[in-house]
């Protein structure tokens, strides 16, 4: 893999790397031994990288989550699963390439795999519609989840979408209904459901495949009710306040853990998943496997009860003990 495109806040690292390169060239030119300088500079780069990555703000994490060289769903499918067979189509209208779904093995376990897939270049993005699914994606996902229910196969959902697609066809074929039906049916599905937000968790489009017994999120992924840019446009009448909006929305893995919206943060390799696909996949694969084993041991009725209660509890409001009306 070639060196990933640096993000703005990674510039200090790039500058140090440039100086390291200079030292190396100088050493070669003059056939001198600069080993200790090289070592010191390498150490400095690592310290700088760690310092930056240990102190990321919300907007920086959003940029990492959207990094074009970040591992996408199918990169994880390739590395974490075996025997992957993509199954196409919703049997109603079409096959949504923004949401590849299929069957695969996770270790010794047969699974249904639901994914959002983004593209790395224009051609891929045209095919994948920038990871924005139409109603067909959600309906295909549900078809496969119900296949899983029929054959007692757990469902694993890898979420990475800016959101459901806001288009004419989407509305004509009722994208809202497709998402709503998934929310209801996933709550009832009689097999374990495991979800991981691996990059972008864009609002209802992400939740539409995100009602799960255990919701994981990668360290630098985000999950938000609205994109920071759109939030900025509404609240500040201007898209330039996206960084402030990102902070306000509490959309990072760490914030969401505090709000109980997610159940587990999966760590990424130093410097982000985009720097080390193999390592990132190894960590995620292990987390998926151990959680799946745990969920498979829970009797299904108990699991469904816990799934309901987990989402039932979410929300924060004040309820003074003496209301005016009767209580339900």
């Amino acid at each position, binding site marked *: 893999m070639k060196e990933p495109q640096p993000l703005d806040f990674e510039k200090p690292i790039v500058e140090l790397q440039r100086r390291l390169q200079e030292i190396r060239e100088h050493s070669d030119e003059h056939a001198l031994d600069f080993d200790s300088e090289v070592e010191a500079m390498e150490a400095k780069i690592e310290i700088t990288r760690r310092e930056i990555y240990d102190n990321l703000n919300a907007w920086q994490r959003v940029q990492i989550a959207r990094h074009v060289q970040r591992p996408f769903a199918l990169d994880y499918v390739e590395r974490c699963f075996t025997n992957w067979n993509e199954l196409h189509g919703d049997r109603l209208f079409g096959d949504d390439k923004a949401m590849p779904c299929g069957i695969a093995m996770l270790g010794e376990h047969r699974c249904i795999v639901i994914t959002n897939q983004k593209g790395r270049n224009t051609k891929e993005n045209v095919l994948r519609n920038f990871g924005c699914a139409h109603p067909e994606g959600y309906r295909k996902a549900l078809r496969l989840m119900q296949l899983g229910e029929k054959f007692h196969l757990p469902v694993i959902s890898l979420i990475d979408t800016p959101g*459901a*697609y*806001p*288009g*004419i066809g*989407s*509305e004509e*074929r*009722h*994208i*809202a*209904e497709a*998402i*709503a*039906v998934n*929310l*209801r*049916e996933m*709550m*009832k599905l009689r097999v374990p459901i495991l979800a991981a937000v691996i990059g972008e968790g864009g*609002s*209802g489009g992400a*939740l539409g495949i*995100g*009602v799960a017994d255990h919701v994981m999120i990668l360290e630098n992924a985000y*999950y*938000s*009710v*609205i994109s920071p840019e759109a*939030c900025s446009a*509404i*609240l*500040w*009448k201007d898209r330039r306040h996206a960084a*402030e*909006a990102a902070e*306000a*929305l*509490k*959309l990072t893995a760490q914030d*969401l853990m505090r*709000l109980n*919206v997610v159940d587990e943060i999966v760590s990424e390799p130093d410097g982000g998943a985009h720097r080390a696909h193999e390592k990132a996949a190894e960590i995620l694969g292990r987390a998926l496997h151990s959680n799946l084993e745990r969920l498979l041991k829970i009797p299904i009725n108990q699991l469904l009860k816990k799934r*309901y209660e987990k*989402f*039932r509890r*979410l*929300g*924060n*409001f*004040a*309820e*003074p003990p*003496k*209301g*005016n*009306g*009767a*209580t*339900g």
Partner: protein
Amino acid sequence: MAIFKKPPTGGGGGRKRRSDIPEGLFQKCPGCNEVVHEIELTENQRVCPHCDYHFSQSAKERIESLLDPGSFVEMDASLHSVDSLRFQGMATYKDRLKKYQESTGLIDAVLSGYGTLEGIRVAIAVMDFAFLAATMGSVVGERITRAIEYATTERIPIIIISASGGARMYEGMLSLMQMAKTSGALARHGEARLPYISILTNPTTAGVMASYASLGDIIVAEPKSMIGFAGPRVIKETTHQDLPKGFQTAEFLEEHGLIDQIVHRRKLRPKIAEFLRFLGPAAA
């Protein structure tokens, strides 16, 4: 996901508009441009007597015109929104809540409870667009969920009258999660084979449309209501396409197969009663 600050065609805050008009007695109908007297509107369930244009109704007015007089008992009236994210924008969430509580006399964007409709016991939740575009935060989600759960426990139908700009961004992901929570409660109500009637009014969009509003056993809409997932401006900007005629109206969605029936507000009460009697309480 809050798309509209104001409903696209009239609607939203009859109360507010009244105060815009001197003496608060007349207003121009957006449907036919006729000048309509406030008393005419009030007596006609806020429908234009000349062209049938449906002005928006408050949640309270809707409950009064749908349920049997005096039968409504409000539940969970003490639930208040809290600013759990300490949201800082140009205006704080707290300030906005206070502003809308003062302008509408409501505590939040939904009224919920139970009562009877032509003698049939029902649970009901009604959203009020005048309160912060009836966006769904924790209070809306919780009250709707409790109303559904009450209906499931009591083995009675649930009616939800929706209007919404979507999930309430000031509560971040907690508001998005209300979509899963309410849909989950409907899953249980449905498994008990109890009827859910979803009534869509102008406008119903985004996160509310992508959860309970779309899940009715029967989905009805008021004429010409704007109904959809994404806002028309967002769709135009994303696709660079002209939108079809009547796009995202109740009529368009009936034509495209989402809505069972478009029902005039005057006929809503007998129609819902007919549906409920027909579906009946299913055997347990």
